[in-house]
């Protein structure tokens, strides 16, 4: 991307656990409420309402300390089963706007809406739409930060809390960050903050104004990065599903049980390509390829093969899946298939041992397709054979 645009959203649910409790106990609204993992002395605060925060109660402090700080607070025990339903609904809403969603926890996520503007409007419009839908469908508030990168958007969403939307236009990052206290910068912990304060550095702008050499002298290579971040420079892209995937798979359930082997193999081809696209997006390759088949009504079988060299290209994945399919299907008398899927597990860093005389054309093609699908969705690029004649 040559010209940076503010298309990265950080969406964060306000005081998530407390908001969820207030939803089912509206009588507690306006009161200091603390949700904690365990209410005994060894319990730890998960979330405090904004009312309780005014007394200094915050996440991660012991319940005993919270009780001293705010004796009037109402203490509730965490109910993860209840929150997780809302969390799933929240992430599903986000994925309605773009497939490029990077979850950062139960109640927050990063989105890159660069490919969604034609459908949903500007990033700011999308942010407003997300906030509206979260309120309407879940019943709680979300704050959103919009900027050119994850770092600035995170600071922006925090700045907007509660129930806010802060847009930092491209180019305005350093100016936006400058007046804010150093602790607002995600990489500044208590220790770093203490050292910086000792140097007379109190705002993010102070860090940006400090010569890099001085920061490097004090913090090593960390110092250079600190200064870059203070200027709003942060390169890590929004990665869909980062850090969660142990396997990547795609499956298709047929409206009418599919009896045609060629057609099934073609569907596998499309699935293999989408799995390969996801692998590339995660920077991964996988050593185990798994095929899943369901015959009506619910007879499900799966077959796996573990390869010596990790697989990442659609062609290799498809070849492995077809071998598994042909064998498994023959074992089941080539009956019509209700569901077909292919997955990769045993994931490792994407790295492919090149063969003698090989060029990288296959990788370039796959990366180009992956980029198109990232922007325009899975169906944007398909194989001819995947499309049914009547479609």
């Amino acid at each position, binding site marked *: 991307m040559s010209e940076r645009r503010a298309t990265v959203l950080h969406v964060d649910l306000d005081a998530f656990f407390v908001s969820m409790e207030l939803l089912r106990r509206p009588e507690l609204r306006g009161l200091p409420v603390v949700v904690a993992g365990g209410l005994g002395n060894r319990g730890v605060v998960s979330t405090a309402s904004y009312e309780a925060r005014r007394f200094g109660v915050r996440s991660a402090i012991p319940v005993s300390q919270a009780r001293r700080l705010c004796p009037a607070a109402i203490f509730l025990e965490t109910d993860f089963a209840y929150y997780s339903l809302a969390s799933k609904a929240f992430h599903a809403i986000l994925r309605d706007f773009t497939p490029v969603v990077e979850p950062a926890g139960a109640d927050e996520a990063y989105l890159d809406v660069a490919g969604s503007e034609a459908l949903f409007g500007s990033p700011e419009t999308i942010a407003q739409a997300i906030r509206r839908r979260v309120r309407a469908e879940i019943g709680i508030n979300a704050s959103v930060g919009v900027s050119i990168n994850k770092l600035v958007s995170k600071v922006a969403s925090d700045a907007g809390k509660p129930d806010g939307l802060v847009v930092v236009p491209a180019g305005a990052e350093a100016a936006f960050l400058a007046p804010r206290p150093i602790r607002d910068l995600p990489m500044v912990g208590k220790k770093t903050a203490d050292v910086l304060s000792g140097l007379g550095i109190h705002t993010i702008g102070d860090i940006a104004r400090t010569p890099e050499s001085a920061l490097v002298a004090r913090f090593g290579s960390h110092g250079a990065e600190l200064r870059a971040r203070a200027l709003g420079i942060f390169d890590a892209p929004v990665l869909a599903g980062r850090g969660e995937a142990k396997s990547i798979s795609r499956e298709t359930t047929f409206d009418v049980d599919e009896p045609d082997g060629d057609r099934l193999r073609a569907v596998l081809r499309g699935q293999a390509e989408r799995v390969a696209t996801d692998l590339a997006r995660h920077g991964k390759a996988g050593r185990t390829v798994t095929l899943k088949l369901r015959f009506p009504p619910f007879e499900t079988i799966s077959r796996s093969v573990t390869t010596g060299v*990790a697989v990442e290209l659609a062609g290799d994945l498809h070849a492995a899946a077809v071998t598994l399919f042909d064998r498994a299907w023959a074992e089941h008398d080539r009956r019509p298939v209700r569901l077909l899927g292919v997955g990769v597990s045993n994931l490792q860093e994407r790295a492919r041992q*090149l063969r*003698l005389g090989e060029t990288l054309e296959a990788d370039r093609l796959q990366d180009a397709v992956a980029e198109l699908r990232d922007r325009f969705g899975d169906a944007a690029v398909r194989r001819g054979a995947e499309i049914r004649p009547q479609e």
Partner: protein
Amino acid sequence: MKVQVLQENLQRGLSIVGRAVATRSTLPITANVLVSTDRGRLKLAATDLDISICAWIGAKIDEEGATTVPSRLISDFVAQLPPTTVSLEVPQNGRQMRLECARNDSTINAMDAEDFPRIPEIRDGVTIQFDPKALRRAIERVEFAAATDDSRPVLTGVHLKTDGTRLTMAAADGFRLAVADITLPESPSESIEVIVPARALRELSRLVGETNEPVEMRVNPQRTQVLFAMTDVEMVAQLIQGTFPNYNQLIPAEYGTKVLVNVDEFKREARIAAIFARDGSGIIRLQMAPGDAGMPGQLTISARADEIGDNEGKIDAKVEGEGSKIAFNSRYLQDVLNVLTGTVALEMTSPSSQGVFRPVDENGVSEPGYVHVVMPMFVQW
């Protein structure tokens, strides 16, 4: 059959032929060793049908004969006997072998020598003489690059081709290529081009290491079998049929970056990096930085594993051309370093094209006799 041999000769002979004994075979007799009298000596032979090894040991022959006994049993047994005379006796029916040594007396069930697979003899064909040291060195520098899976059988072999007094050995597994030249003491009567199973050469290298005798290689006129003969040991192997890929085009003539480093230092850092690499994808990353203002250049060797940690080592290097980077499978990198000594030159043009390893002399001049090409790993830097 009735013969007397020295325990140490018998033990040595059994251990030499033991290499060719089949470990998993549908033909049970190939787990046996053939014991027979042969022109005043005792001949031991074993075969797994791909390769066969025969060894002759001095013996006092009282009565001619032949039989076969389980290799594992007789080898383990003979190894425990005291170093003195062993007498072997096989009755006419050939069904048992009786061994007497000092006051130990035992009987081993045998299988008929008539049922043992015939070991091919190669009487005519092209003959090539080898100096044992040069042969061994070339084999050791090449055979490990041959493929171990047999999806492309020709790649499980080593390609041998002569041109006058030069013999070139090459092996490639699709990811790497090793090519070594040997200067022969004399030109063979006609030029040859054959593919010898890598395993046969590995065994040959061991045999040569034990005997240190000149080796004669003989290829039959049909070019289907090869014989390697030393004074008292012979090995026969089936040649691999097929066309070996034209590998010369895979050795780049030019490079953008060339780095010269001490092999021992490089090896040490690669070994360290490999410890970290083994929990990841087995990737070792190399970065070359040219020196400036009289400072030496630098080769950085690093590896990392998700959730484990990372490692980075630096060594001084002479870097010609631009700074560059390339990633290799840790085993491929270590394999080539392990067969080199002194100084190595690594030549490369891009992170996605061949890395070329060449031994160099003290003056940095490439030694013409060996080149090793490794394809890199395509990684996200």
